């Protein structure tokens, strides 16, 4: 039986893991390769690097980082941020990424999903969708969640699947960083609307929130970041809670019923 995944996300800028407070005053929290290796040892099922660099100069380090990581990491690595074309996807995969996520570039030109999917297979094309509730409807935002597109989130998720995305990384802008739980209604709406796996993101504050993403949200994977980096929870604690709730997990060190 296919297990449900716990995915750890690292925000990367200029080749380093950074952490922001209220989206500002970023501070350096370490080397991505060392952190990724640590989370693999602790039982993470996948790693995501999200490049939040503002400039092309900072972003140039991303492929080198993927290369160094792939030589040390033996679980799947997804990279996202600034990837615009199928050739960019090719470079990322050649550098060492297993999957690539596209967000703003997919909204601007949805065909990029189809082009990447035809060349490399749907399994490595992740459509990243940032959504927020606006006047009772979930709307899609781009450029780091700052720019509204007017697109309705469920319709856009369906379009991403139709174009060839093999997975949807769904982030609630409203919940991101708040630690009050995932947006379960949004997660449920998208996971019921598409047939590709859906990764819930944004809002994990406790192990109970992670369990809810699977139970009430219907997600195939849950993405966590801050609560692990800050030591609020461990990978083993989160996966143990999933197991106790009857969510199938990959058994790794310290996962107990």
């Amino acid at each position, binding site marked *: *039986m*296919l*297990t*449900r*995944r716990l995915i750890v996300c690292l925000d990367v800028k200029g080749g380093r893991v950074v952490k922001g407070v209220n989206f500002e005053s970023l501070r350096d929290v370490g080397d991505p390769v060392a952190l990724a290796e640590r989370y*693999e040892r602790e039982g993470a*099922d996948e790693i995501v690097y999200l490049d939040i660099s503002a400039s092309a100069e900072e972003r140039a380090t991303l492929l080198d980082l993927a*290369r160094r990581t*792939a*030589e*040390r*990491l*033996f*679980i*799947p690595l997804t990279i996202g941020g600034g990837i615009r074309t199928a050739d960019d996807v*090719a470079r990322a*995969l*050649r*550098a*060492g*990424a*297993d*999957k690539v996520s596209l967000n703003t570039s997919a909204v601007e030109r949805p065909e990029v999903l189809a082009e990447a999917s*035809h*060349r*490399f*297979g*749907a*399994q*490595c094309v992740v459509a990243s969708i940032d959504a927020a509730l606006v006047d009772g409807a979930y709307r899609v935002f781009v450029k780091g969640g700052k720019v509204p597109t007017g697109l309705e989130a469920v319709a856009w998720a369906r379009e991403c699947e139709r174009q060839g995305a*093999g*997975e949807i990384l769904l982030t609630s802008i409203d919940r991101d960083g708040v630690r009050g739980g995932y947006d379960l209604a949004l997660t449920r709406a998208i996971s019921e609307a598409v*047939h*590709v*796996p859906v990764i819930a993101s944004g809002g994990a504050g406790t192990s109970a929130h992670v369990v809810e993403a699977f139970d009430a949200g219907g997600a*195939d*994977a849950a993405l966590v970041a801050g609560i692990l980096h800050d030591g609020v929870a461990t990978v083993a604690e989160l996966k143990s809670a999933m197991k106790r709730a009857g969510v199938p997990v*990959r*058994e790794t060190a310290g996962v107990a019923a």
Partner: protein
Amino acid sequence: MPEPRITIFDYGAGNLHSLAKAVASFGTAPVVETDPVRAVETDVLLLPGVGAFTPAAERLAPGRDVMQQALAGGLPCLGICLGMQLLLDGSDEGTGSGLGVIPGWVTRIDAERLPQIGWNSLEDAIDPLLAESGLDTVYYANSFICRPDKRSHVTSWSTHGGDRFAGSVRRGRTVGVQFHPEKSSSAGVAFIHAFLREMLT
């Protein structure tokens, strides 16, 4: 014995770094070869696993007969994911011929949610390499799976949705795995080492 030659046949897309590193940590850095004819001039052949069937079969085509004969002659081969699918006759995914070393056909998984992405368990595993490496939960990223004509070629099974399919196959010194051992953490790397150890000693 001189240092063995281990060759990864590179047929286009995909991340080869993790596989190359897993092999290198066995003690021998692999050679990456894009020419299918030259790829068989080796002690062990690895067919890596990312991409679509048709472009991969096209890249294989000029060396298909040579590679088929080499495998039939006992050249050790590990096919991973799409690389395993290339061991069969052909695929519903697209046109082009596989190697036909494992008779059978590649079809889409019969499941609600595709691709199958994530960790799944291996059932009824009989290949000793799996037990030796402690590999029982493996990482998959695929929509298509192999349906070998002979059940005797299947050495483990997995289930996704309502479909039970071959997790791994073996015929002599040809081994195929539908999952990604190079992405299945330390037990997956141990599996690659166990395969190389069996084939090179």
